[in-house]
């Protein structure tokens, strides 16, 4: 199949290193999203895989072949850009066929491929239009079609949805996902939008400052973030954090802080914890809830602000000097200043080391 393998990859911009000894193995047919904030190196990585920028060390393999020094056109890749980069003075048909014609392919074969791809992407009726006469979705399809006609093994997508308004973005996101299901091709997609990543990816590669923070399925990355960066980058609103320390008592592990004390013995520690070990407890807004009348609350909080979101609401709470966000049903009536006791779903916590920021 068409897997992509990066080994000890290093890329520098002039004297500044952007990526250093990066390893990444992508299986054929996967939809991998490179997710991270601006400047984290995700675009650089994509351009490196494409061959648009030179690497300073390491190796890139596509479908088993070493392409580290190959020209972009010889790597079996197709790329879709943020602006789609369609040739503005050419018709859709020409845009799709131009590269093929240049490469000397037989004209009948060219026409055959263009017709086939056009049908697959529902572009047949638009072949004689110019890019300026197409909608955003149609342009995206032509950009993808350009890669499809060349029968590429891997699709690289450089933030193709970032320029669009929210509604169009959601629509094209669905089209992209549908396309991946139909084609089964390997896709590597760069974005800073975590919703996009969660929706589209089979695996998300979270990056920060040129280093891969975590590479796993959306479910795992969301529920079991490898470090604090990943924990706070995914999810809206951001994960809540409470600083405290661990205490071992009678073979039970407790988390203790100024606002909360709870039993965390069930937690899957990577390394057995020690007493007085510093610890940050993370819990997502949807895993907090007002304590039931019968049970004792785990935290006493005061309500600061309510943000109605339509399908739910976000309630901002304060306990001592700790700020928390809680997600509730929209019907729940709450007033500012109200005192609320809340509880958390114990199974959903994530514990982090305060100094290394890594998951415990």
């Amino acid at each position, binding site marked *: 199949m068409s897997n992509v393998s990066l*080994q*000890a990859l*290093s890329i520098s911009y002039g004297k500044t290193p952007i990526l250093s*000894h990066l390893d990444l193995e992508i299986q054929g047919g996967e939809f991998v999203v490179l997710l991270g904030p601006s400047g984290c190196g995700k675009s650089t990585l994509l351009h490196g895989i494409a061959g648009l920028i030179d690497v*300073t*060390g*390491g*190796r890139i393999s596509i479908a088993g072949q*070493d392409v*580290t*020094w190959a020209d972009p056109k010889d790597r079996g890749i197709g790329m879709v850009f943020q602006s789609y980069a369609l040739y503005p003075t050419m018709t859709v048909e020409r845009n799709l066929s131009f590269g093929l014609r240049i490469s000397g392919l037989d004209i009948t074969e060219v026409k055959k491929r263009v017709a086939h791809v056009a049908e697959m992407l529902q572009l047949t009726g638009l072949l004689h239009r110019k890019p300026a006469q197409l909608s955003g979705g149609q342009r995206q399809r032509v950009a993808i079609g350009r890669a499809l006609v060349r029968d590429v093994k891997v699709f690289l997508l450089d933030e193709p949805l970032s320029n669009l308004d929210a509604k169009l973005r959601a629509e094209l996101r669905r089209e992209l996902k549908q396309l991946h299901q139909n084609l089964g091709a390997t896709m590597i997609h760069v974005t800073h939008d975590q919703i996009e990543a969660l929706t589209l990816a089979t695996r998300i590669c979270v990056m920060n400052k040129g280093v891969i923070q975590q590479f796993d399925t959306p479910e795992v990355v969301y529920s079991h973030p490898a470090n604090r960066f990943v924990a706070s980058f995914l999810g809206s609103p951001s994960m809540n954090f409470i600083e405290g320390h661990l205490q071992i008592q009678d073979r039970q592990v407790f988390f203790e802080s100024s606002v909360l004390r709870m039993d965390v013995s069930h937690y899957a520690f990577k390394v057995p914890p020690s007493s007085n070990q510093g610890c940050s407890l993370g819990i997502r807004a949807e895993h907090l809830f007002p304590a039931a009348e019968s049970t004792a609350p785990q935290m006493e909080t005061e309500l600061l602000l309510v943000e109605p979101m339509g399908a739910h609401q976000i309630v901002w709470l304060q306990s001592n000097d700790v700020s928390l966000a809680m997600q509730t049903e929209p019907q729940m009536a709450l007033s500012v200043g109200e005192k609320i006791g809340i509880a958390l779903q114990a199974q959903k916590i994530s514990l982090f080391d305060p100094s290394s920021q890594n998951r415990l």
Partner: protein
Amino acid sequence: MSTDIPSMLSPRPSVQWFTPGRIGIYVFLISAALFFLLPLYVMGVTSIKPMVEIREGNIFQFPLAMTFEPWAQAWSSACTGLQCNGISVGFINSVQILLPSLVLSIFLGSINGYALAFWKVRWGHWAFSVLMLGAFIPYQVMMYPLVRMFAWADIFQSITNIVLVHTIFGMPIMTLLFKNYYGGLPPELFKAARIDGGGFWRIYFQLMVPMSLPIFVVATIMQTTGIWNDFILGLIFAGREHYPMTVQLNNIINSTQGEKIYNVNMAATLLTSLVPLAVYFVSGRWFVRGIAAGAVKG
């Protein structure tokens, strides 16, 4: 490079920097640079060569006996027609012509552009269209009527005359420059100023002028180059006592009888070109901005 096991990593193929393609590019660019530089070099070299060497006929050769005498001669004793006071006379004239012309043409251009961009003056747009058309017409078409008009006003062939002429012929491009610039500013700015109580002149002097200093710089560069380099208008409208440097230069070069004193000629040419060259090299990016702005008219 990488500290990993070398065998695991791809070796970089031999340096591809000097492909035939890259070499070809540099060859072309350097050849072109030589084409542009050679005449300048020849001019410079000739201007410091003694006539003895010039007669030998190798214009590319560096002088064996360098002399700056031709420069001194060009400046103070070359013959521009009947007088032999050098081209320094022309220099002073050119400066006398340039400064008022700059002020008047740029001031009027900016007022025009400002009024057209922000104020409702219907006939103004018609006038502007005619002005733009006028920019394409050769000076000769209007020359005789202008001569007659200035003669009738008794200012023919004077500094006043040439300054007005430069203003007239500079008006299209100057107005266009400022009109485009002011047109590109957010209109809310102007509306806010009106609401604050500003009138035409107050808004112009207190808001627009400070905001458009860059475009004034561009205008100055364009007009300085254009006016200093002008020949035909200075020839006709400035009058013998006020001939600009370009006219004097042509007189030196083309009206000498007998053997031409080539080194003095070249020195005179360089002297005439010093001001625009200096403007060019100092202004750098601004010069190019001027070109871009002028190109918009096309």
